[in-house]
């Protein structure tokens, strides 16, 4: 799949934002006044900024309101509805904390649940696609959730939960890579089933329908950059998981946590780029590509 910048920024930023908002909704840390203001400002800018970034890849973003209508069937629509609901509920909770110095905790809990559901809905946009066998697996939502909550914990200075969640995320990430590499083969879809000609013999794409490029190839048969995938996996895993965990084991001092957070975010961007770049869509089979 084509690793579009807007979608990478969207999933990383809003993942972190809703991760942070989850912790804030739970009252961790329990701050009021200006401290609460800054916490929520960071949470809302990441969550909202990410959502805004996602509109940059739309062909007709001015019709975005319609995207809230199909929550019965569409994960993308659910994601939109849940994100707005989470931000609205936590916005009210934040108003209480910032302006009245009171904690309407039930509101916070509801908001936290909505934030978690938002993260799950985001991941399900990808995990639901049978056409991308690497994504179509339970590790996708679990990994998104653990990374969002782990990164959010670092942002909320919840260092111990952050440490544990990052360790779990690391384990799931390794599993996702390991299982993901064999998913396409295992799916049973190949050029033989794609064309139905596999029963006759060995099928080879002889001539493409057109000499130039097209939308399908640009969007779904992205092959550039996969050659560095192994190196990038090392970079992503070390920066996203290993170094932040190492730093948090050494110290919980503010500068160290900030450093761990920055490295984690950079690593997550690399991880997310790979998430798209390494994902192979079955339509590539029609072009004799993966």
């Amino acid at each position: 799949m084509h690793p579009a910048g807007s979608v990478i920024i969207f999933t990383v930023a809003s993942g972190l934002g809703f991760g942070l908002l989850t912790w804030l909704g739970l009252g961790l840390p329990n701050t009021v006044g200006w401290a609460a203001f800054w916490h929520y400002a960071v949470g809302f800018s990441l969550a909202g900024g990410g959502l805004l970034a996602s509109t940059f890849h739309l062909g007709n973003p001015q019709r975005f309101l319609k995207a809230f209508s199909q929550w019965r069937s569409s994960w993308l629509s659910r994601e939109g509805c849940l994100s707005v609901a989470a931000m609205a509920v936590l916005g009210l909770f934040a108003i209480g904390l910032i302006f009245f110095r009171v904690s309407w905790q039930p509101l916070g809990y509801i908001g936290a649940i909505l934030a978690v559901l938002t993260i799950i809905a985001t991941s399900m946009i990808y995990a639901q696609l049978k056409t991308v066998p690497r994504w179509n697996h339970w590790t996708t939502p679990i990994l998104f959730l653990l990374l969002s909550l782990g990164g959010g914990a670092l942002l909320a200075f919840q260092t111990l939960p952050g440490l544990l969640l990052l360790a779990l995320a690391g384990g799931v990430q390794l599993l996702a890579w390991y299982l993901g590499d064999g998913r396409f083969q295992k799916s049973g879809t190949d050029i033989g089933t794609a064309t139905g000609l596999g029963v006759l013999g060995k099928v080879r794409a002889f001539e493409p329908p057109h000499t130039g490029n097209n939308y399908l190839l640009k969007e779904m048969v992205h092959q550039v950059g996969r050659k560095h995938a192994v190196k990038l996996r090392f970079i992503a895993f070390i920066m996203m998981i290993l170094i932040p965990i190492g730093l948090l084991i050494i110290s919980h001092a503010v500068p160290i946590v900030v450093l761990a957070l920055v490295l984690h975010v950079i690593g997550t961007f690399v991880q997310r780029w790979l998430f798209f770049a390494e994902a192979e869509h079955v339509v590539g089979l029609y072009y004799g590509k993966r």
Partner: protein
Amino acid sequence: MTTLPQSTQKKLGLVIDLDTCVGCHACVVSCKGWNTENYGAPLSDQDAYGAEPSGTFLNRVHSYEVQPEVGPAQLIHFPKSCLHCDDAPCVTVCPTGASYKRQEDGIVLVNEDACIGCGLCAWACPYGAREMDQAAGVMKKCTLCVDRIYNENLPEEDRVPSCVRTCPSGARHFGDLADETSDVSLLVAARDGMDLMPELGTKPVNKYLPPRPKDVIPEFDILAPYLEPVATTQKGFLGWLDKALEKI
């Protein structure tokens, strides 16, 4: 509404004969010609006369080589457009309700006024049947020429999809695949019509007729064994060369 109908009264679709398709791409041109000036936004081209031309097409013809275990390879031309699936994954993922499957005839359409151009339906389609128009920013797909098949301003023989009307080799057939007595259903039954990627559970309405097996000419000439070449070793200069090279 982007939930799928429980069932559709008709299942209008295409039956494509891979045995007779000659790969002329006339259906591609005819489809683009009709659909660029009728239903919805035109099918735009980018850099049409430049170094890297590309454009939106609703129908494309691939060509595949099939090498059987014995015998010569076969070349098969393979037109591909929307299969108007019963369980269309492109419809349910749509966040705006722009994508829908019609209850009355099973045609999968896009309401372009509601499409935000997110591209998720194209990701959900295993067949590459949907292409985002780069000029209009909305998703384009085969409409089964919904503006021809019910169009009473056209002569009756023209009330079929443009690709079907154009095909010079009669490789494309249009009809109701829910009706077991329709011509297309009988054709599918007679020729073992098949689904593409059945393992993905999309239940395509369009069917493909596999190429018929090639004739094998039986050995019937009783004199043929006597006409086999007799000399197995080379003589003269080539024979000497063969031996000399062997010894090196």
